């Protein structure tokens, strides 16, 4: 059975706002019956203020699909349509204290139902902008379609390339066989053959630090590397900052969606790996919450 949080279970066993809203003037229907989940979101929107006065859901789906639908209606009630559109699937997952990687698509379905309902209210047509494939990388929840598109778009050739561009395969590495199969397929379509020993395509090659560095240079370099992770984390609704460097340990703060994310340990491992490559030394990356408490000189002298 899935490792569902208590909040997921609570929203599943006691769903809020189940059923269609009477007199709804915004309806969003998304999902795929072949995949086994589909959601109809009905909203009652105040025509003057555009405030969502009531929201209801009808869901065909598993425990986390029902919980995601339920929590979505709770989040958006009382928001204006513009405010509601800022709700991301990470917000939905975070409100549920996280979802297993295989189940993140349930939160995506919630956000999409919302977009579809708003489009419906505004007389627009909502178009799904992504196709979902079979989950390949369980560590970072990356599916086959995403990997295939990236391999095509960036002419990727190796597993390492795929990891650099999508994060897929950067965690436990168990999916490397599946990634190789995707590479084999796409490369064949491109008229090339897959060579597991091929040199990776050019990645933003980090300039390897050449010691000796001053303390300040070293910390600046470490910060630079950590900053380079921000764009991809921010794309997922998270962020990271360097807090302190003590000897061979770099303390970082994971914020936003990273905070409490089941994947944050993987992310930290990825940062650590890159840091070691760039710095050419062993560096441990640790969440700032585990940093030894700083003491002032006065406190220390009383100790």
């Amino acid at each position, binding site marked *: 059975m899935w490792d569902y949080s208590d909040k997921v279970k609570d929203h599943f*066993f006691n769903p809020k706002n189940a*059923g269609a809203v009477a007199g709804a003037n915004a309806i969003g229907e998304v999902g*795929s019956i072949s*995949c*086994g989940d589909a959601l109809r979101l009905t909203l009652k929107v105040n025509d003057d203020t555009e405030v969502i006065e009531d929201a209801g859901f009808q869901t065909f789906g598993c425990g986390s699909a029902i919980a995601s639908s339920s929590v979505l209606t709770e989040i958006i009630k009382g928001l204006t349509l513009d405010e509601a559109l800022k709700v991301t699937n990470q917000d939905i997952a975070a409100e549920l204290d996280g979802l297993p990687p*295989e189940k993140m698509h349930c939160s995506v379905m919630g956000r999409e139902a919302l977009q579809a309902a708003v489009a419906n209210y505004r007389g627009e047509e909502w178009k*799904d902008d992504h196709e*979902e494939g*079979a*989950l390949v990388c369980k560590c970072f929840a990356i599916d086959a379609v995403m990997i295939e598109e990236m391999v095509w778009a960036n002419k990727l050739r190796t597993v390492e390339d795929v990891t650099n561009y999508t994060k897929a395969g950067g965690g436990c590495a168990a999916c490397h066989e599946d990634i190789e199969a995707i590479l084999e397929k796409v490369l064949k379509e491109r008229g090339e053959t897959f060579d597991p020993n091929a040199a990776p395509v050019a990645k933003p090659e980090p300039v390897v630090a050449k010691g000796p560095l001053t303390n300040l240079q070293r910390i600046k370099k470490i910060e630079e590397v950590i900053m380079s992770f921000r764009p991809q984390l921010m794309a997922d609704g998270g962020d990271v900052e360097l807090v302190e460097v003590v000897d061979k340990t770099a303390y970082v703060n994971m914020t936003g969606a990273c905070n409490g994310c089941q994947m944050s340990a993987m992310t930290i491992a990825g940062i650590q790996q890159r840091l070691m490559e760039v710095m050419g030394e062993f560096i441990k990356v640790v969440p700032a919450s585990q940093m030894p408490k700083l003491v002032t000189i006065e406190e220390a002298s009383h100790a």
Partner: protein
Amino acid sequence: MPDIYLDNNATTKVDSAVVDVMIPYFTEFFGNPSSIHRFADGVAKAIKKARSQVQELIGAEHDSEIIFTSCGTESDSTAILSAIKAQPNRKEIITTSVEHPAILALCENLEKEGYTIHRMPVDKCGRLNLEAYKNLLSEEVAIVSVMWANNETGTIFPVVEMAEMANAAGVMFHTDAVQAVGKIPMMLQDTKIDMLSISGHKLHAPKGIGVLYLKRGTRFRPLLRGGHQERGRRAGTENTASIVGLGKACELAMEHMEYENVQVKAMRDRLEQGIVAAVPHCFITGDLNNRLPNTTDIAFEYIEGEAILMLLNKAGIAASSGSACTSGSLEPSHVMRAMDIPYTAAHGTIRFSFSRYNTMSEVDEVLKVMPSIVATLRKLSPYWDSINNEPVADPEQAFQPTYA
């Protein structure tokens, strides 16, 4: 009421009599059966006894036809890989579209290596077309692998007849019988089945022990080499305690064969008839006239299986589902798809599988909660009209979500 376990096709409780006979082989007789000293005394004999207990249950002619392995999957892989290795000129494999992944995933992999895989389709009741099968048999085929009974629906395939047909065409025949062994009687010495897989934990033995039955004279290539164990056909120090346990479990299965086919079947029948009578819009999948006595697979339309399982679990009832969500895949069970069960029903299939430990009062308990569980979820479903308590008119038309 203590929790009710109706997921015996997934795995079974180890019989306490099985545990009892195993314990001494962890503590007292822990010696390597190949050793000469007193710690190994009797261990080889115990394995021999277990071998004959397995032999008895499946009606094998010789005890040397029993090869102990680590699980059903290992037995399946050994059988198929042996057949293709021993007959390198034969590049085709015949199997069915409803096999366990232990067979299907292996075949898919062999397909990449250039093998042609014939996956025989099934009809809406999960039955094969033997005429089509006959036409596939040829000198190009290395092996036929057809399960004895389906793990999801319990549907039994005519493997004895199919083995005869394969034999007449000079083709090797393997059957994955992990769900059938111990539940239905068999007499392998009277059949043309060349290889058969058993999994211990499906019949009240522990996990991590299996058997490959290998008919004497069948050409064989081991999967694991490196020792003389199992007459050189499966190297690796014997899992003695589990082998002894499996032997005992086979003996018990033999004793309970009639109970399984009368009392256990009666519980299964009462459950499915009770559910079908009390819950609208549900149906039993598979070949109703030709099934394992312990299995029923019921499709509840317009709701999803994982959600049903979570509510059953809350009520203290363990079962399983063919929905996509329970496995983390994007498609419902390949068995349901092969039988052309519509998506609105395939995702809502629940399998209840019994064992001799279940009771009629447990059946009544499930019957008590099932209608309200289904009703609760239907209230949430976009395919259900809560006001009139029936499916919305023309459900697949009424609700057509944008694919996301």
